[in-house]
């Protein structure tokens, strides 16, 4: 074997230039230095993390209590941690792109076209697959079993595998910062541009395998949540008694099951093109990239609702809780959710009205798209009427919900404009489109996720988040959004193409300046979110809510301690109507001990999930760099733990009845001795998580 052959066998396509540090050393321009700095952040971040874990001796608890845990609550929290890390990276990238565009009007700016293209590709890929998806999956994971009165999801081990596959994909995107480069084909990765002929490097391969890992994880999550909601509801919890968040989670799960396979298929076929010279999407030999475009958006449009529906669920919970009132039009909302789910599969073509279809086809999909506006509009009104004759408190999650309603409507309106093909023709592929989807996804997803995080945080950790910092953060997120994206509508109408590294129209400049100010405000929103977390952890003793119901809320998750015990409920609840906890409190039947307690069987921790995720990432890394021995090793590594696990019989452990009873009685004693607080004091330290009953009715 020659030296080259040996090198290729051992390291595939890896060489010194794969490392941004080497590239920056050889060619120290600003763009390469920024790249090297980002790569260095990954490396330094990893080193600091390892050092911190070692210094604090957190390795054992990290692995034994968290990474190997099958507890849906811990898995949910880990998902949200991933989302937070990835959000930080992708938001910094967004600021960098905005900075580039505002500086690059008739000027070179700070990053090269290559670098800029990687920025918009990673920004989109991360925000969708590694920020939004983990965030909503995390919330669903944490909340749904508690809301339906279950002890865990239907398949706890599969849940851990899903998490770790997503983490593996996210890890791969992070590694691409320090080793090699990322795709320049955008988050949608259209061939033939992402084919081997036009992008022979490793970029699209990183994209393909990161997406594939995460989409597999998401498919499993969808199956898991759907099975959980169908099969694990407590006695009396009919589908029509589930909190609305469960409805949206169910709809999202169904969409995940049916929408992720077209994506997995599209990326797999693209991989076959790139690795084995197939011609599915090439220009020649019978390939046809239009098939990719259809497959991608057959996933891509339902994906939009996968992202938005859980946030709709959060808003339903938050607005109802902070209006101290039952949700208006519960059945309407549930029906509208399912209608949106079905319609979301009938509109994918509106992503490419400009591909030359006949007017009949375009008009059909345009009308189908508009139809979605009806159930969506209904939902908006249902939330507005939920506040009607309520007692509204402007806590941070409620503020995000109100900002969502107003802002989302504007995004919906630009969506109606885009649904009309002739109008789409003049703003498609411009920053008008960029403004539109940020205008629906920031309020329709991110605000919802932040609201949900702030709303359920006291449940998960036992103390409230700082209200002041929550409001400051809210101020930045909302003002930042308007300043960053409203100018893009104007610029798009002025014909500014999206994904432009440089611009040659001086008239664009003032609007781009406003947009960069907005981007910095959004970054401040993120920073203040972290400040809020830090301040709240520091002051946690003053803000504890151990009794578990800090917001005087209505569904079952608030009927247990904060944080809840591992098994969620000492005894499985019985439900006889919607908003069961509200009615328990109303009938003075809350906080009562069970007649008798039983032993509870819970799944033991397992190493299978983390091993599968790690091996999956290793396999993908081998594929990216053509290191075939590593690929095979990784592939075996994915399956070996799964096979081995099927021989393990001892997978459960039992918590004795006496232990369950002791824990429960300790909490009930606490609830009995705690002073209930009125709503006026709910953001004060006096709030220990026990609500003073509201009068049932106040005449006007």
């Amino acid at each position: 074997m020659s030296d080259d052959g040996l090198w290729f066998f051992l390291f595939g396509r890896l060489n010194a230039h794969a490392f941004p540090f080497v590239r920056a050393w050889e060619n120290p321009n600003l763009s390469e230095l920024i790249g090297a700095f980002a790569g260095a952040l990954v490396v330094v971040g990893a080193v600091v993390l390892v050092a911190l874990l070692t210094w604090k001796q957190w390795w054992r608890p990290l692995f034994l209590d968290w990474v190997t845990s099958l507890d849906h609550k811990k898995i949910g929290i880990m998902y949200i941690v991933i989302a937070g890390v990835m959000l930080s990276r992708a938001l910094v990238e967004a600021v960098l792109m905005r900075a580039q565009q505002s500086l690059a009007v008739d000027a070179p700016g700070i990053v090269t076209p290559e670098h800029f293209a990687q920025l918009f590709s990673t920004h989109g890929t991360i925000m969708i697959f590694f920020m939004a998806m983990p965030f909503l999956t995390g919330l669903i994971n944490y909340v749904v079993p508690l809301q339906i009165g279950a002890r865990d999801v239907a398949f706890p081990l599969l849940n851990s595998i899903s998490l770790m596959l997503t983490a593996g994909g996210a890890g791969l995107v992070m590694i691409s910062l320090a080793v090699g480069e990322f795709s320049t084909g955008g988050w949608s990765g259209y061939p033939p541009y992402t084919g081997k002929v036009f992008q022979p490097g490793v970029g699209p391969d990183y994209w393909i395998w990161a997406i594939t890992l995460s989409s597999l994880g998401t498919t499993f999550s969808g199956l898991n949540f759907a099975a959980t909601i169908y099969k694990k509801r407590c006695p009396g919890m009919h589908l029509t008694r589930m909190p609305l968040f469960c409805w949206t989670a169910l709809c999202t799960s169904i969409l995940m099951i049916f929408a992720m396979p077209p994506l997995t298929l599209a990326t797999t076929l693209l991989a076959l093109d790139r690795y084995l010279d197939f011609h599915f999407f090439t220009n020649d030999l019978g390939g046809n990239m239009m098939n990719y475009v259809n497959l991608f958006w057959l996933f891509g449009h339902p994906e939009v609702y996968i992202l938005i529906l859980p946030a709709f669920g959060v808003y339903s919970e938050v607005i109802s809780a902070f209006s101290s009132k039952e949700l208006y039009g519960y059945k309407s909302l549930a029906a509208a959710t399912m209608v949106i789910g079905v319609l979301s599969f009938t509109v994918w073509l509106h992503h490419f009205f400009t591909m030359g279809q006949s007017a009949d086809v375009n008009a059909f999909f345009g009308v189908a798209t508009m139809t979605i506006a009806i159930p969506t509009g209904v939902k908006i009104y249902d939330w507005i009427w939920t506040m009607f004759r309520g007692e509204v408190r402007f806590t941070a999650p409620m503020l995000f919900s109100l900002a969502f309603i107003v802002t989302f409507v504007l995004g919906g309106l630009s969506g109606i404009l885009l649904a009309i093909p002739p109008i789409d023709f003049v703003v498609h592929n411009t920053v008008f489109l960029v403004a539109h989807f940020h205008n629906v996804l920031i309020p329709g997803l991110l605000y919802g996720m932040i609201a949900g995080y702030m709303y359920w945080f006291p449940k998960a950790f036992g103390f409230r988040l700082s209200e002041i910092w929550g409001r400051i953060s809210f101020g930045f997120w909302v003002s930042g959004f308007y300043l960053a994206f409203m100018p893009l509508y104007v610029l798009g109408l002025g014909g500014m193409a999206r994904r432009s590294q440089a611009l040659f129209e001086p008239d664009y400049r003032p609007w781009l300046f406003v947009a960069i100010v907005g981007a910095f405000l959004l970054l401040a929103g993120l920073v203040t979110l972290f400040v809020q977390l830090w301040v709240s952890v520091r002051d946690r003793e003053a803000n504890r809510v151990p009794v578990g119901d800090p917001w005087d809320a209505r569904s079952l998750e608030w009927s247990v301690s904060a944080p809840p015990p591992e098994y969620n409920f000492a005894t499985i609840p019985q439900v006889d109507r919607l908003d069961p906890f509200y009615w328990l409190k109303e009938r003075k039947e809350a906080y009562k001990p069970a007649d008798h307690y039983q032993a509870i069987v819970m799944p033991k921790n397992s190493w299978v999930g983390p091993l599968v995720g790690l091996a999956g990432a290793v396999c993908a890394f081998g594929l990216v760099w053509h290191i075939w021995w590593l690929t095979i090793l990784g592939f075996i590594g994915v399956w070996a733990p799964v096979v081995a696990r099927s021989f393990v019989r001892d997978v459960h452990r039992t918590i004795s009845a006496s232990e369950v009873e002791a824990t429960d009685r300790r909490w009930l004693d606490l609830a009995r001795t705690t002073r209930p607080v009125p709503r006026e004091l709910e953001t004060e330290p006096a709030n220990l998580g026990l609500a003073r009953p509201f009068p049932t009715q106040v005449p006007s």
Partner: protein
Amino acid sequence: MTDTALADPCRSGRPGRAALRLASLSAIVALLPLGGCSVLDHGVLGAAGPVADQTRSLFLLVCTILLFVAAPVLLLTPIFAWHYRLSNTKSAYRPQWGFNWPLEGFIWIPPAIIVVVLAVLLWRDTHKLDPYKPLASPYPPVEVQVVALDWKWLFIYPDEGVASVNEFVFPVDRPVHLSLTSGTVMQSFFVPQLAGQIYAMAGMTTQHNLAANRPGRFRGENTQFNGMGFQNQKFPVLAKSTDDYASWLAQARSGRKTLDEGAYAALTARSIQAEPILFGSVTPGLFQTILAHDDPGMPTAHGHHPK
């Protein structure tokens, strides 16, 4: 990318806005209404042709209708939230009220009616403004074959036997019929002030119809990202009087450059073309040859390999 690569053929040479660069944050915001709105002239709102004109009318009509959709939400949300705030002890409180049939009708029916109205409008105008539909005109259309390349546009005038790169010229008031394909990855052809955009894809043709109703210089661009020269892939669109168009054709022919397969192959190299190129003659059937390179379903030897 070097500085020279950033040269833009469409640069209009307006005076710089050095003052803005130095202005403080608040000053920028304050200056916006004064200096910023000319940006809209570059898009469909600065319509200079019949297609863009009708699209602009449709856009403004739909925006007006949408005002009525947005208004109730934008009004009711703050009003309800504020009126029913906890500290307002005078407001009613009905925690167990959650459904009302007449209200339900109010929530479902008006949005449905608006969507039906918009759908009728949509169906009508999608057909009226179908890019494939020839424009009504007493004059025959100018035929132009458009090839998207990295990172430039090739315009072939088969009836005239001339071709140009990065300069799209046609006479005012005569409709233009475009047949588009790509010699590389997918791109999107867009002249915002004249008409909407349409994709150009290898091995396939798409069609487009546009016209200008006043002489002028407009910006044409590719809006589908296609690599490192994407941002520079702009071209001037010149709508000229009949006489000026004739003299442009004469100018093209006088250059004696020939666009044959060899010249085309040179154009397919990935590069930014700052200055327009004119070809005085074109190999007949070149557009069909380019199409056949990458015809899906027609196996060919490996086509071109860019770079």
